[in-house]
């Protein structure tokens, strides 16, 4: 322990010295332009929840900002990384080496986010992870060069799992996606369930993506657990739920708990199947006037309502541009410093602030999917039950595994 903390202290010292040296030298916008790179799953299992419509949100942010910062133009390049960390990492390398990209955002799939953020640190650029969910992104994989904006596995599963156990769902079977996201979610749920007095009856990991969930569902059925916790996202989640219905899971008294829920998933599942699902979300388009106003502008362009990710994309890019404008620099250290010193408050983030580990904490919401009778429109899908205050919603810094935090 002693040894470890002295390493951290040394690191912190180095960081302080570096920042002192940097402050005088680099306060300017490199290459006379600000280049934002948006990479995400544009065609695959996660493309609905972020994807091309997420790019629209980024474009809206740039347009609303006036297309330039301090007289320097803002450029956007984008690409489909197909959830492949190798593709993403090669692309990011090329963007930073060849295309003068200053900030990369989107970064769906936690595996991609982790790979790219390491590279971003090496090249000393900036990344704002909006889509990927693993809380290890600002835990063991934190770097001074990236921040995590919208939500994470801890924030969406901890409160929801505790609430379900309190309502009597004590034994759990966990089914998770077999990569960084699913692993992080699995750990968070296990911890929440056990701490609140429940038990884990069994768990299984499925490949990402999976076409045929039948054998996993069978195993979950055989476990006899009250709750089948689903730590999968996007089309995987939808397929798992549909298969569970085919095999009569809900009919036989087991409850499905979807933990990673996007409005697009609930929309495509339909209220008949989805009603009553309890989950935590970072934002909902109909939660207040500010949110509605932006969501309607988005709907005009995309023909559908935004997910929390798409709203978060707009928020992240806008705050980045504000930081560049205020500091007159696109140096990652200046930008991060500014973001940490100023409150994060807009139509998306409430009571937000950027923590030292790179986690942007803001209010989260416990929500429930409406029944078909309660819903008044195609996108009238959620009822917000309660607000989880920003400081309670995310994994506390005292439990952090991030090197940037002095524990």
């Amino acid at each position: 322990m002693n040894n470890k903390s002295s390493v951290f202290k040394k690191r912190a010292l180095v960081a302080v010295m570096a920042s002192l040296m940097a402050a005088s030298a680099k306060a300017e916008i490199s290459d006379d332009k600000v280049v934002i790179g948006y990479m995400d799953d544009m065609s695959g299992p996660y493309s609905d929840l972020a994807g091309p419509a997420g790019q629209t949100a980024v474009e809206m942010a740039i347009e609303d900002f006036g297309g330039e910062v301090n007289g320097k133009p803002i450029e956007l390049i984008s690409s489909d990384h197909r959830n492949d960390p190798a593709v993403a990492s090669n692309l990011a390398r090329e963007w930073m080496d060849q295309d003068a990209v200053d900030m990369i955002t989107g970064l769906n799939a936690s595996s991609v986010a982790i790979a790219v953020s390491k590279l971003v640190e090496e090249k000393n650029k900036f990344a704002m992870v909006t889509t990927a969910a693993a809380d290890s992104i600002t835990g063991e994989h934190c770097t001074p060069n990236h921040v995590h904006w919208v939500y994470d596995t801890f924030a969406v599963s901890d409160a929801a799992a505790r609430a379900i156990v309190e309502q009597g769902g004590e034994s759990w079977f966990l089914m998770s996606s077999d990569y960084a996201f699913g692993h992080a979610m699995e750990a968070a749920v296990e911890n929440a369930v056990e701490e609140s007095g429940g038990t884990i009856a069994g768990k299984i990991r499925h490949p990402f993506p999976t076409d045929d969930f039948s054998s996993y569902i069978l195993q979950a059925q055989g476990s006899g657990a009250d709750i089948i916790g689903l730590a999968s996202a996007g089309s995987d989640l939808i397929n798992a739920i549909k298969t569970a219905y085919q095999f009569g899971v809900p009919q036989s008294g087991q409850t499905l708990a979807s933990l990673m829920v996007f409005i697009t998933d609930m929309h495509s599942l339909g209220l008949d199947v989805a009603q009553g699902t309890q989950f935590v979300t970072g934002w909902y388009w109909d939660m207040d006037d500010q949110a509605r106003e932006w969501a309607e502008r988005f709907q005009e362009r995309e023909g559908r309502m935004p997910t929390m990710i798409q709203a978060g994309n707009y928020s992240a890019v806008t705050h980045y541009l504000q930081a560049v404008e205020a500091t007159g620099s696109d140096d990652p250290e200046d930008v991060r410093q500014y973001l940490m010193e100023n409150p994060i408050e807009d139509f998306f983030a409430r009571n937000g602030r950027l923590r030292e580990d790179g986690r942007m904490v803001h209010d989260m919401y416990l929500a429930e999917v409406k029944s078909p009778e309660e819903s008044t429109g195609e996108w009238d899908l959620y009822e917000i039950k309660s607000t989880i205050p920003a400081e309670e919603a995310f994994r506390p810094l005292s439990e952090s595994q991030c090197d940037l935090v002095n524990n």
Partner: protein
Amino acid sequence: MAPTHSLTPAMQRQRNARLRRNTFYLALLAIALVAPFVAYPVFLMKVLCFALFACAFNLLLGYAGLLSFGHAAFLATGGYITGYLLASYPGLTPELGILAGTLASLGLGLAFGALAIRRQGIYFAMVTLALAQMVFFFYIQAPFTGGEDGLHGVPRGELLGLISLADNLNMYYFVLAVFVIAFALIQRTVHSPYGQVLKAIRENEPRAVSLGYNVDAYKLVAFVISAGIAGLAGATKTVVFQLASLTDAHWHMSGEVVLMTLLGGVGSLFGPLVGAGLVVSLQTQLAQSPLGNWVSVILGAIFVICVLSFRSGIVGEIQKLVKKNFK
């Protein structure tokens, strides 16, 4: 060097051919040496790694007549072993890491080869494909590969503990050196007596058997060398890109190397080089263009065209042209 009178015309021709070839090699090497000042070095390194991979594959298809549809397994094994070792043992220098990756592929090649050469032709292709798919599933689940997340943060390190490879130019010249050495090895193998026997087996296996050659042993050696060089390509690639991932183990990668070789010219030394260069440039260029999503359709179309009417590949067709017009 003054020509000697005692040379027969045939020897003279041979000698001229060798001279021409050496001049050609030198010109290519000169181009390769200045290339990183003109083009993006990481792109060039990618081309070199894939060219090496294709050369390894060609050694098997072009000279032993064996179509392996599982060469991705060797590329990936080289990459994963090297990546894992370099990432977990910070003291290890990159060249030792690469050596370890190559040896691992060599070993895997021995196991695969021993099984696969029991069947011929189409069965051989299917068996190698299935074996490689098994390796793919193994790498998804093996803890050291990071599974779906991939293996990241492989340090480029310092060559021999002296020269930092973090610099793209240093890295490039190292990759070029690896390529040249491996290419020379392949060339020596092909022109050696062993290579001649291999060709004889390809042309007429029963005849080679009746001449007393242990055909299976010859094939196995070719398979193992090819696997080792494919592993070397994968290991080098991992150091360049600082990561190893399932993409390299996926069977699409096995298909891509077949395409590179077919497009460039099966059984010609330079064919795979040209093919790899073209396919990699095509992928890189198209990825940024509106045609980006059509890459696999275009590759498929190239496959069909090559098979239907372009079976000697680019280099092969050029050689035919040269022979026709200058003889």
